[in-house]
Each structure stands twice: as C-alpha cells, then as structure tokens.
C-alpha cells in the first residue's frame, strides 16, 4: 500500500510539472512583420488604416486521454484527479487549449503595415483609426476587413485568412480586393517541427506582401 502512496505522490509531482509547463509564458502572438523590398512610391496625402475584425474560427485542442500509469485504487484516484483538474483548467484558461488567428494577431499585423508604410514614406503620414467619421474626405482611407480567420488541424496546422482591402480617397470609387491566404499544408512533411506561431507568421507575412501590392496597384491606377 505504501507503494501506491509513493506512486500517487510521484504522479502528483508530474502533474504539477505538467500544469506549470502549461502555464509557463511562451510567445503566442505573431511578431512585428518586416517588408524589406522598396515600395517606391510617394503619395502626398495622409493615410488612415481602418481595421474591421470579422469572424474567427478557432481549433480546440481535444482533452487528453487521462492518466494510465497505474491500475487499482491509486490509479483510479490519480486518473480522477487528472481529468477533473484538466477540465477545470480548460474552463478557466480557454486560450491555452485553442488555436486561433485572433484580434491580437490582427492588431500586430496592422501596426506592422503602418510601420512599413511610414518607414518607406509612402504617404505624408499614416495612422491607425477606429472611427471612420473622423477621416477627412481628401485623405486616403485604407480599410482592412478580416472577413474570416480560420484555423484547422489535420495533418498539420492550416490557417486560412480571407481579407478584404478597400482604398478610397476623395470622391473616387473605392479600390477593392479580396485576398485569400493560407499556408501550404503539403510542406508539413518537410517542416514538421514548425510550430503554430511560425505558420501564423508566414501567413501574415504573405498577407502583408499582398496588401502592399494592392496599395501599389491602386496607386498605379490613380496616377
């Protein structure tokens, strides 16, 4: 019986490690994005980036199968502890069990876009706005609508973003484009070690390039 007691104690120590590792802070929001190519245009107008978040479809990590290290009474107690603590932890800390491309990632994306446009002096000035009514009619309004952000997990992480870009200035009709971006799941075999954050960053980087190309096209069309 004493053996069971020791096993219980060892299992509980392992659980503590498991939860503490689970609670340990690790980077989960995309880092600031960079754009190294020259954009090569200069528009003497103020620009405002207007963000509209849309629907987010996330993937919930399924609960673990439980503890199966020991049979008998001690094993039963440990298993009961494990499942109850895990379910409570899931309820209290949902973000640790959900994979998503969320509002935090979108906010980082927008500040990155603003920084790139500012660094390359594309506009006279660029700011982020949440109130469209404050935008002057002669300024450039760049509306970025994250229609859907979807995360699924099959053989690997699959992140799909559907983003609508709308650029308007003065009384001109708005320039509108919809971009569908997703990471290549087929690459998972070669880059299986790449984590979810890396995939999110890749997709965001691709989206940033598309949005900047969209701004370039709009500029050429309005020259």
């Amino acid at each position, binding site marked *: *019986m004493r053996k*069971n007691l020791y096993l219980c104690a060892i299992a*509980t120590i392992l659980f503590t490690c498991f939860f*503490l590792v689970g609670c340990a802070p690790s980077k989960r929001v995309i880092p600031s994005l960079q754009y190294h190519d020259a954009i090569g245009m200069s528009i003497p107008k103020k620009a405002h980036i207007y963000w509209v*978040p849309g629907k987010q479809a996330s993937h919930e990590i399924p609960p673990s199968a439980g503890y199966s290290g020991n049979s008998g009474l001690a094993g039963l107690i440990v298993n009961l*502890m494990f499942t109850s*603590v895990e379910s409570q932890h899931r309820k209290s800390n949902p973000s640790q069990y959900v994979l998503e491309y969320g509002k*935090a990632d979108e906010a*980082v994306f*927008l500040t990155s876009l603003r920084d790139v446009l500012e660094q390359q002096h594309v506009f006279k000035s660029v700011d982020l706005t949440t109130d469209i009514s404050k935008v002057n009619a002669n300024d450039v309004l760049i509306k970025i609508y994250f229609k859907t952000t979807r995360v699924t997990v099959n053989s690997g992480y699959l992140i799909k973003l559907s983003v609508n870009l709308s650029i308007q200035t003065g009384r001109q009709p708005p320039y509108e484009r919809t971009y569908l971006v997703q990471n290549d799941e087929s690459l998972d075999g070669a880059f299986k070690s790449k984590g979810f954050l890396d995939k999110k960053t890749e997709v965001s980087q691709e989206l940033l390039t598309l949005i900047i190309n969209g701004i370039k096209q709009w500029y050429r069309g309005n020259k």
Partner: protein
Amino acid sequence: MLDFMPKLNLSVLAVFSVFFLIACTAERNYRGVADPFWRELSGEQKQLIVDQAYERDFGQDIKKEGNHK
C-alpha cells in the same frame, strides 16, 4: 486492509486542493483577447483593440445621441 486510507486520503486531498487552486486561477479577458496574448502586445496595439471594441459597442449610440442634440 484499509489502514492506509487516512494517510492516502490526507496526502491526496492536500495535493488535490493545491492543484485545484492552480486550475482555478482563471485567465482574464480584455476585449476578446485572453490575458496571455494581451501581455505580449504593445501599448499601442492594446489601445487599438480597446478603441475598436469601444467603437463597435458604443460608437453608433454616441453618434446618434450627438445627432439628436
């Protein structure tokens, strides 16, 4: 046969309550962003999320009130 039970119960209960304390430390949520994500954002990004949520929740009402005045 059950003489180990008080010891076992005591130790298991003690550890179980510690675990429950860990499990019950619920994460906070700021305008739809969970605390672990929120802490990684810069002040400007946090402000953007707050402003956007405010505009979505109250922007229309404030504009309507302004128009009535």
